[in-house]
């Protein structure tokens, strides 16, 4: 079955028949984590980099922020039997508007925070498609971990 991951949401699954999809990644970051041996994976769509800007909202909805959402998804996958050393990470999004005014540079900040968290957790990014002024849709297939990006009329595998 196909499950939609909305903005500030995550979904995890251990059913190889499932496909997880998130639409319209702008400056948000989409992160797919997959353990090919345990065949468990997850997809998260984080909107903002750091939860400290609104801690009450981060308690209500940790997946809104990269720094609180990503560790939550990692833990949920470990609980399903995933192992850190086997996890494959793929990243999409972090797009930007045409002009880079610092006030609006959310994509870049999201990307920096995400890389830092993954690095701290000893998870390498296997492939990523970030930046530019395009919106992206991201699919994760739970049977193989294949991650597909649709953007500006094109479709390609992130590998």
């Amino acid at each position, binding site marked *: 079955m196909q499950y939609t991951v909305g903005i500030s949401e995550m979904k995890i699954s251990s059913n190889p028949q499932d496909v997880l999809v998130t639409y319209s990644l702008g400056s948000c970051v989409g992160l797919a984590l997959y353990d090919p041996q345990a065949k468990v994976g997850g997809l998260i769509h984080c*909107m903002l980099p750091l939860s400290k800007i609104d801690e009450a909202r981060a308690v209500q909805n940790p997946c809104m922020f990269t720094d609180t959402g990503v560790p939550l998804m990692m833990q949920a996958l470990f609980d399903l039997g995933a192992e850190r050393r086997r996890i494959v990470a793929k990243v999409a999004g972090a*797009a930007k508007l045409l002009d880079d005014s610092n006030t609006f540079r959310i994509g870049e900040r999201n990307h920096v925070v995400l890389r830092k968290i993954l690095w701290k957790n000893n998870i390498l990014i296997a492939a990523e498609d970030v930046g530019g002024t395009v919106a992206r849709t991201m699919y994760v297939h739970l049977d193989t971990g294949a991650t597909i990006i649709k953007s500006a009329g094109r479709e390609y595998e992130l590998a």
Partner: protein
Amino acid sequence: MSRRDEILNKVSAIPALPASATQAIRLIQSETTGLSDIMKAIEYDVSLTADVLRLANSAYFAGPRQISSLREAGVLLGAARILQLVLASAVFPVASRPIKGYDLPANDLLDHLLAVAIGAEELGKRLRVSVPHYTFTAGLLHDIGKIVLGTFLEVDGEAIRQVAFEEQISFEAAEDRVLGINHAEVGAALLESWQLPEGIVQVVRWHHSPELAGAEALTADLVHAADMLSIECGLGVGVDGLNYRIGPDVAERLRLKATLAEQVTAAMLTELQAIRAQRRPTGGAA
């Protein structure tokens, strides 16, 4: 006839709003509108009344209260708020359809319009500036020109995207290049033909060039900033992508810092999700 004139001619052929909404618009302009006038204008329009009540019951407007009748909504929220909700409900049916020319699926533009209406108001509140009461409505209608171009005229958004991409110009500048007019100007022309208040028309016209908005500069800055934040987080982004330019000095004029921008973005999404839950209780595609 130029493509621009052709488009402007079509605008005048677009059906008017429902009578109840037109009546509400006239009331917005009047200084002395009371609750009973509003009730009279919409009480016979059952679906409009139902939409207004659903909106009124979302946390953004009502907080934790439960509002069960139009009269109660009027007392709790005030006449100005009810008028905004009437107008919002009137554009729901047309804004929730897919916008073909811009490659927007059903409900995506409506989500964007609501996000910008909420975001502009929220920004004003947090920046502690005094904003006109029609800021919400201006935000809600800012992209109505996209409905005209994308639905009634079915312009080829892909051709516009290519021009924007190749020349590294913003999408509305590419619209100007290809069509001789952009969605902001088309929206303003439509709202003029609906005889909406001049302030709203000017904000819609200049929402991509707020520095040109004259007397409406502050509201145009707020709507523009909320629009850019909403586009950044991918709300209502179709073929145009993130190909938009932030108006020069908008952040400086508003004294808008990155932290506040992010706080408003977070609030905008949360409130939008609450309204969405009220409108589509069964869930549906996000």
